[in-house]
């Protein structure tokens, strides 16, 4: 077992375990902490996948900003412990679990079975070329910096429109949430 493999299994267990913890802890604060743990785990996974920049962003945005937001809101609500953490309907609960289980089964099955033909047949022609070209690029920018640079270039050329649109989105959200807070019945209503 190489370190890579070990790392993967460790992180996978960490992520799944803390993910389950989010689900299972009845105290929302614990859930939030578990979520933070998951986020960190995911960031680590990103690193194992050579996505350093994204891993950083993940830590900053998620584990940092978003988690703080969650915790703040939990504090704001001031809920100590929950009486009914889970839905109570037996049939609906069972159906939910079955649905979720089947879905995971389907996806996993799809992944495993799809993999057989994946990269193999279909990508032989079109996708393989893309992959080759990409890998060439990747190799050119061997180090982490180079990869990040590549990312930056793509972001500001190919995906510039989406990026700008994100800007609009954030602006709108910022104004909107403030407006919501100030609206009638909001936290900062006049």
């Amino acid at each position, binding site marked *: 077992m190489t370190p890579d493999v070990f790392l993967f299994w460790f992180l996978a267990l960490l992520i799944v375990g803390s993910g389950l913890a989010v689900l299972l802890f009845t105290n929302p604060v614990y859930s939030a902490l578990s979520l933070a743990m998951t986020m960190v785990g995911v960031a680590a996974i990103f690193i194992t996948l050579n996505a350093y920049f994204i891993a950083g962003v993940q830590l900053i945005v998620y584990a940092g900003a978003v988690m703080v937001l969650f915790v703040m809101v939990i504090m704001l609500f001031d809920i100590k412990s929950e009486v009914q953490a889970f*839905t109570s309907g037996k049939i*609906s609960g069972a*159906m*939910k679990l079955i*649905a*979720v289980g*089947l*879905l995971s089964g*389907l996806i996993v*099955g*799809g992944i495993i079975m799809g993999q057989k033909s994946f990269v193999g047949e279909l990508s032989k022609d079109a996708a393989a070329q893309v992959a080759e070209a990409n890998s060439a690029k990747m190799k050119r920018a061997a180090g982490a910096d180079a990869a990040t640079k590549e990312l930056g270039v793509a972001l500001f050329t190919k995906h510039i429109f989406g990026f700008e649109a994100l800007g609009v989105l954030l602006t709108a959200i910022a104004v909107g949430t403030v407006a919501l807070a100030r609206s009638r019945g909001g936290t900062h209503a006049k």
Partner: protein
Amino acid sequence: MDHSVLMAILLLSPFIGFLINGVRYKQPTYKLSGGIATAAVFISFICSVLLFSDLVGLPADQRKIHVKFFEWLSVDKFKVDAAFYVDQISGIMILIITGVGSLIHLFSTEYMHHDKGVTKYFSYLNLFVFNMLILVLGDSLLTMFVGWEGVGLCSYLLIGFWFTDKEKAAAGMKAFITNRVGDAAFLLGMFILFSTFGTLNIQEINSLAPTAVETSWLGALTLGTMFLFVGATGKSAQIPLYVWLPDAMAGPTPVSALIHAATMVTAGIYMIVRLNPIFIVAPNTMMVIAIIGALTALMAASIGITQWDIKKVLAYSTVSQLGYMFLAVGVGAFGAGLFHVMTHAFFKALMFLGSGSVIHAMHEEQDIRKMGGLKKYMPITHWTFFLGWLAIIGIPPFAGFFSKDEILWMSFHSPMGSPVLWAVGALSAGMTAFYMTRLMCLTFWGKSRVPKSVHPHESPAMMTIPLVVLAFLSVVGGWIGIPEVIGHTFGHIPNYLGDWLAPVIRPIPNLAPADHSLEWGLMGASFGIASISAFVAYHFYVKSPEIPGKIAASIKPVYELVFKKYLVDELYFKTIINPLVEISRKIWFYIDVNFIDKLTYIIADLIKGGGGVTRSLQTGNVQVYAMYIAIGLVVALSIIIIK
């Protein structure tokens, strides 16, 4: 005058009378209304006479006056004209209709004078004459059918004339609907004839009629004539559709005289006579006609013996006499049938009018048990009625004798006839004599049983004049058809009627030459039967009035059955009408309400139930909604993968 003008006046005069009286239907002026109506029919009568005389003037084989007014209906090959023609047969009929008709109109003027609806009454009566004329003159079966239904309609209106009485209204309805059954069959008969001959024109049908006899029961001619005959049983009150006629006495008495004795009810015979070329080649139909006719004659006569209502007795007598006529045409003696139509029109109209006179005098009393000894109060009525009585029971040389005798002879002699038919006919003749004598005795003779409050009196002249005229006709009416056997004996008196009709009537095939001695013998036998029954009746009801009651008591069940008219009405109600109403209710309830509608409700409820389900699925819980998404995802993915 031009024939078409004459024909138009003949037809339209009563119609205009109907319109005039119809428009002023509320007026209670009986003299004016009656005058208009009588004049209208009388004008028709004059036209009839003129037309008839023109007809007489023509050579024997061209005796036909045909007038076409316009093309009535034409679709593809089916063409019917509004055309009318007078020939030997219809010539006699229009004379009877307008002649007897005007007399009855005259009679009605006085008879109905106290009635508020007198003008309406006369308008109906005129309308009836109009329709009757269309019936007899129409040159195609469809035109005939117009009159056929038209007279039924007038009959309905006149039977139900006093509509505030539920029973009378019901009687009218019964008449119409019973007639409709026949009419439906008539329609089918027409369809078959049209399919066979491609035309409904009576002359064309007659000329196209094959000479070969059709033996099959399901042949077109047999079937067609059979349906036409069923139509005739409706109109002419034969078994099984006779039930309406006794009830039809609910109408005013002159109506009974005109419609239900003299004219309308003979339409069936008239139709068969007119179409005799196709009937004669359908022996199966002929046999059925003869049997039905004989049975009707017998049955109606037997009922007539037991009835107490003066008009009912006459009504059953009419049914019985009509049976005779059918017996005649059934054995192929079309001329004899028509002859009896004529004589019957005279004496039966006379007797009905006489009974009307009596009823008038008795203040609307119709039960003969409350009469008796009226002879001295109303001599003219009595004597005219007496002559009519002689005519109907077949005393020579009164009108009824000749016609009835010819029928009986032909039913024996014709190859289509048989001794059984003769015996039945003779038996009913005896019964006829019995009950008519009974009627005479109970009404006019014997002791008076008139209640104290009623003061009978002779009717005014306007009512007695028609009686006298009809009485005269009842006496002499038969002389135009003196049979050969008698004619020979008393010098060479020709059979005018027979000769007159000869060109339009197909001779009976395979008719053997008459055996004169046999004919005399049968004549004597029937006369004997009639006289004896008349005498017995006289004895029963005048000499020793207690006997009939005793006899009735001794055969009570039979008497009851006969008195209740063999329970035929009840049978019809029980087996046809009530089940029909019941079935209607059931199908309405089970099919319409509980099946079709229910089915739609079930569909609607299913949809609404579905709505309820969606409603209950919409719990408001967002996690349940998410679950729907998840389930949808799972199911969709499964299907996508499996396919």
